[in-house]
């Protein structure tokens, strides 16, 4: 066997193996495993208290996991303090040192690496220029605006070119008008620098538009991870489907399986949902599936297998789409989004039949017993 035959395994920037962390009785992180390839943009997404920030702090070394391993660049760092890890971190409120000028602040990481003074000054000037904050070099944090602080914090974290940059809700403290611009800039910066970004957020728009890989967390566990389009089009659990906007989550009981299609009995009727890669559930067991609101069809033809009779309650017009909120048997609420600037076709109070084609139903994994 020659060297060329050995498969080249690209070295991972970060690997988490079964991380656990508890505070007293509260489990903050439960069996979290994650692999981050070279220069990837990872988004940890979830509601507050889901363990995403604790996971990030474990990577930084600010928290020590109770069990599990952390590898940075293929090197085991579990138990090592933050100052020995090849990471940098950007904090939610930026955590700028109030007594240091911007230049001193940005040079701090280089000082810690014991770089010569002249080299630090040159590098700081270069980075400040690149971040367009050169004119702020002698200011202190109190004299900066929110957007400027954000740039300083980013420059301070990136100046040493770490392997991984950890970002804890990095644009949460900014005005809405600034966020979109900053997001674009950060995405470009990440691509150009080749530094892996691990971005913690509760905002799904951020997560899905920025991430190469999205990790959805809930109750200390990873619910689902994958490419943004994968997670969006195929939520694997009821939580993920419900957390992502625009999904109708329907609960019911399993019926018979025929040709890889499961019958699900719900309050709204019986529907046919493809099993795909899931094992056929026991008949009568509780389960859920979801249908995206824009995948519903108005007044479906006879060939559409899944149909519901509904009454329209409200219609909201958002510009890009029109959202209809409808109610079915037993008070179940269904959302239907109509994209494109089409004339309104369903009036409030109107009774209507909606349907969806077989492959638009997404079955969820059975909830843990």
């Amino acid at each position, binding site marked *: 066997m020659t060297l060329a035959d050995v498969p080249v395994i690209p070295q991972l920037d970060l690997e988490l193996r079964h991380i656990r962390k508890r505070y007293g009785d509260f489990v903050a992180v439960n069996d979290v495993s994650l692999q981050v390839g070279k220069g990837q943009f990872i988004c940890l997404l979830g509601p507050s208290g889901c363990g995403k920030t604790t996971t990030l702090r474990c990577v930084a070394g600010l928290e020590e996991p109770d069990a599990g391993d952390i590898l940075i660049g293929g090197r085991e760092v579990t138990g090592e303090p933050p*100052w020995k890890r090849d990471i940098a*971190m950007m904090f939610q409120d930026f*955590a*700028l*040192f109030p007594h240091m000028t911007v230049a001193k602040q940005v040079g*701090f990481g280089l000082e810690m690496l014991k770089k010569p003074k002249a080299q630090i000054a040159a590098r700081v000037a270069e980075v400040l220029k690149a971040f367009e904050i050169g004119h702020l070099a002698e200011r202190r944090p109190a004299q900066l605006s929110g957007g400027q602080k954000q740039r300083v914090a980013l420059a301070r974290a990136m100046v040493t070119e770490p392997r991984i940059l950890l970002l804890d809700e990095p644009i949460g403290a900014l005005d809405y008008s600034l966020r979109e611009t900053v997001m674009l800039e950060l995405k470009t910066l990440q691509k150009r620098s080749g530094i892996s970004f691990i971005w913690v957020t509760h905002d799904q728009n951020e997560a899905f538009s920025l991430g190469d890989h999205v990790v959805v967390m809930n109750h200390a566990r990873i619910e689902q991870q994958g490419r943004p389009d994968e997670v969006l089009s195929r939520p694997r659990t009821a939580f993920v489907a419900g957390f992502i906007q625009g999904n109708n989550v329907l609960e019911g009981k399993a019926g018979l399986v025929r040709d890889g299609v499961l019958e699900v009995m719900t309050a709204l009727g019986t529907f046919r949902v493809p099993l795909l890669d899931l094992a056929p559930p026991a008949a009568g067991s509780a389960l859920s599936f979801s249908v995206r609101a824009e995948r519903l069809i108005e007044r479906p033809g006879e060939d559409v297998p899944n149909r519901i009779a509904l009454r329209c309650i409200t219609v909201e017009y958002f510009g890009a789409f029109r959202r209809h909120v409808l109610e079915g048997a037993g008070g179940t609420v269904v959302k239907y989004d109509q994209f494109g600037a089409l004339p309104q076709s369903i009036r409030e109070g109107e009774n209507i039949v909606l349907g969806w084609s077989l492959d638009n139903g997404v079955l969820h994994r059975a909830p843990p017993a």
Partner: protein
Amino acid sequence: MSTIRLRSPAAFWLALPAGLWMALAVVLPVLLIVWVSLWGGTSVSPNNPITFDNYQRFLSNQNYLWLIGDTLVQTAMIMAITGVLGYCIAYFLTVKVASPGWRVALFLAFVIPFWTSTLIRAIAFVPFLGVNGLLNQALMAIGLIERPIQAFLYSRLGISMAQVSLYTLLASGPVVYMLNSIPPALREAAMTLKAPPIIVFWRIILPLTLPGIVIGQVLVFLNVLADFITVTTVGGNKLAFLGNLILLFYEGSQIRATAVVSVLLMLLMLAGVTLALRVVDIRKIGG
């Protein structure tokens, strides 16, 4: 809510009572003392000529100059000890004690003794430091010494021990406040920028608590300079600092000398506070 503008009639009338009180209780007596310190002649009379003779006489006495120097040395020593000790206690209470319950308990144990008056606390040191005092008995009980140490009470060592105990809280309190106002994220940010704990302390924590240290030092400085009670009670009549000298002259009816020492003491205090204000702007604290 309306605000009171500077130099408006409302501001003037609101400041008047306190202003009057300050003028009568502080400014006027100080002016009187300064005036008396400049009296020539020998009688107590408003018609005395104004002269600097009293100062000249006092400052040309070698013994008194030594005493001024000695007072300053003692003050500096107490400032140094209470500064280090107070900072350590403040750091321990706010940073190292993780449980909030313990923090409150320890903080109260530290603070409650200071609710008693300075005089009582100073006197309380007599039975503590005496030949049959608590300290000697404790040291003998654990076998560190065989016979009581006499030098605890009525000595400079005793005074210093008492003063350190009396004034450490003053040095510590402002530091506790400053430490509490440092967001934990700053420490963490420094650590993720590759700073080990000792550097985090030196480069982040210490500079950010500097105003607290300076204010604490000013408080200790003023209190030790003004302290004659501890020196009298714990030091017996063996020792005197500037504060005691005022008392001695006063009891000896030497009204001019009393005033001279008082003015000199006030000038020392003023110089110290001015110096401290150059280092840190106290008005910025808490704003």
